[in-house]
């Protein structure tokens, strides 16, 4: 007879009160046996990571655990679509991990929530992490109110992918560095390609280029200490005008990304010759374009309104952050330092294709010899942060709708941008009140 059956028989014969006491005692002993089994000094770190990075980092932490036998790292993988909500919910529910990957456009938001810890002292004492080991524009996205809240893990920006051969046929051996030259190159390519072809693909649902164009034209996107929208200001209107003109002259198709069945097929066919995109497409272009095409495409930094130096791009990527509520901040910081080592950054790059944040890693042959990465490295030296306000994601969605309306011709640009500014002002109302209340930029 099994233990449980025998126990049940015994319990049935006892009086109900004693039987109940016996069951409770057994339950308590069982639970005590389950938990607390971990021996003395072993620390368990909880680390959250998103998407492909979450899969890959599990391999990297094995080496960290080997170096630090008293630390165990539990990696929780979260899909990007749910990450923002899950992190916020964890903060509200006081169940944040010890450390996490955080998209660097979210760092300001979580710093405002006082969810993540400032790292200045740790960085000052560190031998691995230092400000000048990183791209200045990327480092800056992690600085909120003069304090550093994250260490860049991998970086991301937007550059121009283009068909070298089609550009050569139109008489250009490289992409011109200024907007006017770029525009002339686009017109030349369309003339050389013939009817039904376009120069560049700017999907109406991708709003990142429209942030880039505004930053390039010198617009801060928000004004008055990031408390009001600046989309109807002269700088942004100039940028919007330049790019709406591109659609107006049929240099780009006014369609969303989903309406082109296969981006790579159309690029190979020459339906369009230029595309603004990020590092993930380096691998995708190599995989999806036919072998004969591999020498025909190249990357270039984005042209700017007044020449190459004004051709700034977005400062994207992810940072590693420590949460204030963590009970093992020293161990978590060790993990951050481990992942910031150049050799770990290179391993990470080899596994994911995500560009390393540590500039030392870029000198390795794997990256130094890749022709197409040159443009990324140059561009990363010219990146600008988007406004560091918690409402930025909400504002960028509103921008997306405005861009769609302008490009598809639903409404004229001036009134659309004015309407966008009204929406943005309404979103930022609370921030204005807070800033006024505290009499300054300090939140």
């Amino acid at each position, binding site marked *: 007879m099994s233990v449980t059956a025998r126990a049940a028989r015994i319990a049935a014969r006892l009086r109900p009160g004693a039987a109940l006491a016996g069951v409770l005692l057994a339950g308590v002993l069982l639970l005590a046996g389950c938990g607390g089994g971990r021996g003395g000094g072993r620390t368990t770190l909880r680390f959250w990571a998103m998407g492909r990075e979450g899969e890959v980092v599990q391999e990297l932490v094995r080496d960290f655990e080997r170096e630090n036998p008293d630390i165990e790292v539990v990696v929780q993988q979260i899909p990007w679509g749910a990450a923002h*909500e899950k992190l916020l919910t964890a903060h*509200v529910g006081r169940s944040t991990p010890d450390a996490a990957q955080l998209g660097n456009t979210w760092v300001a938001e979580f710093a*405002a*929530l006082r969810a993540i810890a400032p790292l200045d002292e740790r960085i000052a004492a560190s031998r691995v992490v230092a400000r000048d080991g990183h791209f200045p524009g990327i480092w800056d996205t992690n600085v909120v109110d003069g304090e550093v809240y994250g260490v860049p893990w991998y970086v991301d920006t937007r550059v121009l992918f283009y068909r070298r051969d089609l550009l050569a046929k139109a008489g250009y051996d490289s992409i011109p560095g200024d907007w006017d030259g770029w525009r002339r190159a686009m017109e030349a390519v369309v003339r050389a390609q013939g009817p039904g072809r376009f120069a560049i693909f700017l999907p109406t649902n991708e709003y990142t280029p429209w942030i880039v164009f505004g930053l390039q034209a010198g617009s801060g996107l928000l004004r008055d200490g990031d408390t009001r929208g600046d989309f109807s200001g002269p700088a942004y209107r100039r940028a919007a005008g330049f790019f709406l003109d591109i659609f107006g002259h049929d240099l780009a198709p006014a369609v969303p990304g*989903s309406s082109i*069945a296969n981006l790579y097929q159309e690029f190979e066919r020459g339906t369009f010759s230029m595309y603004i995109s990020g590092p993930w497409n380096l691998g995708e272009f190599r995989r999806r374009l036919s072998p004969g095409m591999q020498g025909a495409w190249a990357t270039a930094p984005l042209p700017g309104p007044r020449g190459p130096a004004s051709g700034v791009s977005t400062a994207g990527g992810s940072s590693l952050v420590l949460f204030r509520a963590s009970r093992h901040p020293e161990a978590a910081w060790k993990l951050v330092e481990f992942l910031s080592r150049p050799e770990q950054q290179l391993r990470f790059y080899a596994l994911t294709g995500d560009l390393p944040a540590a500039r030392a890693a870029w000198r390795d042959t794997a990256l130094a010899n890749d022709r197409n990465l040159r443009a990324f490295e140059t561009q990363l030296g010219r990146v600008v942060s988007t406004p560091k306000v918690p409402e930025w994601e909400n504002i960028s969605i509103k921008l997306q709708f405005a861009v769609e309306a302008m490009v598809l011709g639903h409404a004229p640009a001036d009134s659309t941008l004015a309407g966008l500014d009204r929406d943005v002002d309404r979103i930022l109302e609370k*921030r204005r009140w*807070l800033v006024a209340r505290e009499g300054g930029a300090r939140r």
Partner: protein
Amino acid sequence: MKSAGEGRQHRAGWAFVAPALTLIGVFFFLPVLAGLVLSFTDFDIYAIGRPDVARFVGVRNYAQVLTNPLFWQALFNTFYFVIVGGPLSVLASLVAAMLVSARLARFPGLFRSIFFMPVVTTLVAVAIVWRYLYHPQYGLLNWALGLAGIGPVDWLGNPHTAMLGIILMAVWKNFGYNMLIFVAGLQSIPEELYEAAALDGASPWQRFVHVTLPGLAPTFLFVGVMTMLGNFQLFSEPYVMTQGGPLRATTTVVLLMYEEGFRWWRMGMAAAIAFVLFVIMLGGTLLQMRLARERR
């Protein structure tokens, strides 16, 4: 005059009900009350870090909700779903219930299970399959339409047809649930009524109209109210299939509430939307019950 025995019975009754009432009070009424208070504040992401920053704003949230064109768009989409999808779903459930309960039906248990399976299938898996069915170039639905000579329809990409696509999928997924309720209702109609009607020379259609339908009246009220309440709260289907697009054609009130509350963390606003929806649903329920009473 109450006897001592009655008093004891009253106390005993309250004692037995007290645990359940406490649970309902703590886990249902208290949060609803808290939600109501929240809807009069501007609790948002700043207030999560520092609660003192939440301001009491009176009915400003409600005013903003009622003047927000996106809310009216969401309300229109929700009403579209309730008015078109609701009766369609109830009709499909009734037809399925009658087919399964027909005297000539073979393997009624098997078919009941088959019709009920969509209800218990994971929504995400169903959404993936239906997205393939709706694909403009390679979807089965457009292929079938092509056989009839109708050109391809971009079901989920065209703002005019997206909600219809969601309705079809939701009806397919949920009709099995109400079908079971109708089956129970049909079984409760006495067989003698049908025999008597047949003896009086009633045709099958007349038997349906004069015996089945009146006999199902209480079931209709129940299914009608429950379906309406569920349809007003439509969220998961648009969230998974179209994310509220294209051009906000499938954004429902609950989806809007989710965006305000959990994407932008404007909890006060989301609570206000919730209470507006509550008032609308209460009105719809009272209307249905009034109509049912008048029919009797």
